[in-house]
């Protein structure tokens, strides 16, 4: 599955990173707490969150996330989008809530994967 497929499944609007939509996605991590993303998300995952701060983009960058999905139709500031552009983190916005967004992606085969330092545990 690619980011482009994700955009379709979530009926999402691509805010930045149009040219990265060919990227392949297998795993996702849903959270509003950035420490959790750092502690548990697998590198290269799609991060799904309701948070729209600069820190979300920086956290995604630290983790080499494949992209960001912002839920509930929220739109980050221009500053945040510009930063995402600079750091090559594509961002899409979906009107669905985090629960439904996770649900839809899970139903389409995206896997929840927990990677604590030094070990990994993936669902399904």
């Amino acid at each position: 599955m690619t980011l482009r497929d994700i955009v379709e499944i979530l009926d999402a609007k691509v805010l930045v990173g149009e040219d990265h939509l060919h990227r392949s996605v297998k795993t996702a991590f849903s959270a509003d707490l950035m420490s959790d993303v750092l502690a548990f998300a697998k590198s290269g995952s799609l991060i799904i969150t309701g948070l729209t701060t600069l820190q979300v983009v920086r956290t995604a960058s630290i983790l080499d996330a494949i992209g960001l999905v912002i839920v509930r139709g929220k739109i980050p500031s221009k500053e945040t989008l510009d930063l995402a552009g600079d750091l090559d983190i594509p961002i899409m916005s979906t009107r669905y809530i985090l629960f439904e967004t996770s649900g839809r992606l899970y139903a389409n085969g995206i896997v929840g994967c927990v990677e604590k330092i030094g070990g990994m545990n993936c669902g399904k």
Partner: protein
Amino acid sequence: MNLAFLTKELDLKVASCEDHLTREVKGGYVGDLLSDVIAHSTQGDVWITRQSHKNIIAVSALREHAGIILSLGTEPGDDTLDKAQSEGIPVLITTLPSFEIAGKIYDLLAAR
């Protein structure tokens, strides 16, 4: 579909209010930012979160959630459990991450 069903299906650990598991689950909400949960979750939601401090109980009571599911094996503190008991809010625990538990519950709700 009620909490007892979810508990069994998804192998959840019951941390509080075992006697309230008959509560009906109408939907789900995932979120760790309290203001967001207060503003957008609805009555009958099962709230999936990683926040374990005692403020979550007040939020859940306010929004009349079916209950709270703590993900990634998060254990609530004693003060949280005390409050949960006095407010009658079921608190359940899963070892799965929020994305996955949400996915499974979404599936179950859709299959109803």
